[in-house]
């Protein structure tokens, strides 16, 4: 089988695929009810009424993504070049990774909201979701100001 990725992708095509990816990602979050903070807190609350749903969401996502990765790896000899730029720039486990992820976890646990579900739930019009997204964007800016001097 030839490489299914070996065709020319126009800039407009790439905008369309990015849009579709965001749309499908959001629908996945809604179908799995990950847009409901109470349900996410139910997963994180192992000492209370534990709701294991999020584990099944991760299994569904990991199996699907791994299956596609396997198919493409098998059909594309130049697979490495296909995904080169998607490779993250960092490779080592460092203090920034551990501290950053731990801080993120505290924020996530406080409200049950993480970036994807927060953006999807803006459509609900709830003031709280706007407060969260506004604060999250402020957090992005604070990071840039503190760690990325121009």
């Amino acid at each position, binding site marked *: 089988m030839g490489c299914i990725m070996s065709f020319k992708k126009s800039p407009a095509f790439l905008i369309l695929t990015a849009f579709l990816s965001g749309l499908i990602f959001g629908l996945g979050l809604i179908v799995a009810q990950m847009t409901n903070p109470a349900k996410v807190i139910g997963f994180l609350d192992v000492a209370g009424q534990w709701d294991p749903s999020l584990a099944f969401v991760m299994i569904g996502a990991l199996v699907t993504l791994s299956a596609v990765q396997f198919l493409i790896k098998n059909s594309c000899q130049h697979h490495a070049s296909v995904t080169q730029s998607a490779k993250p720039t960092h490779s080592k486990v460092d203090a920034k990774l*551990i501290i950053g992820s731990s801080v993120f*976890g505290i924020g996530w646990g406080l409200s049950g909201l993480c970036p994807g579900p927060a953006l999807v739930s803006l459509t609900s019009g709830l003031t709280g979701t706007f407060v969260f997204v506004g604060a999250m964007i*402020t957090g992005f800016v604070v990071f840039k100001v503190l760690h990325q001097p121009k």
Partner: protein
Amino acid sequence: MAAFAGIRFNSFKYMNYLTVLLSLAGGALIGLAAALLLYFNNRVAGISGIAAGVIKPWQSDSAWRLAFLIGLILSASVWFLFGGIMPIQLDSTVEVLALSGLLVGYGTQLGNGCTSGHGICGLARLSTRSMVATACFMITAGLTVYGVHHVL
């Protein structure tokens, strides 16, 4: 019901076959979306990275990021259009939400990813960094929920 390592699993009454099926189906859609972005756009579907990338106006690759975010935000409208419902129970106060958002925004930038970038895309690539990151945020999120709901 069964008790294991101090964690009671009697809460499985919340889980039924439909919930498991919807969780798996939702997860499959998320995996499909991540695969689409990875193989067509050569990008990792990490929401925090995509969103923060738009804030740099000098960056040349904002177009696909905006397209992704517009798709993400419009997904709820598409869902409503087909008669779907999206239950949201947000019990936090405005102050807690503001603090929570700040920590999520800052933490995901320092740690280079969130639930999607590390927890799904990174784990699927078997990235060591993502495994460490996922372990970190799962543990601190669990401890935070424990502190807020069982201690305070």
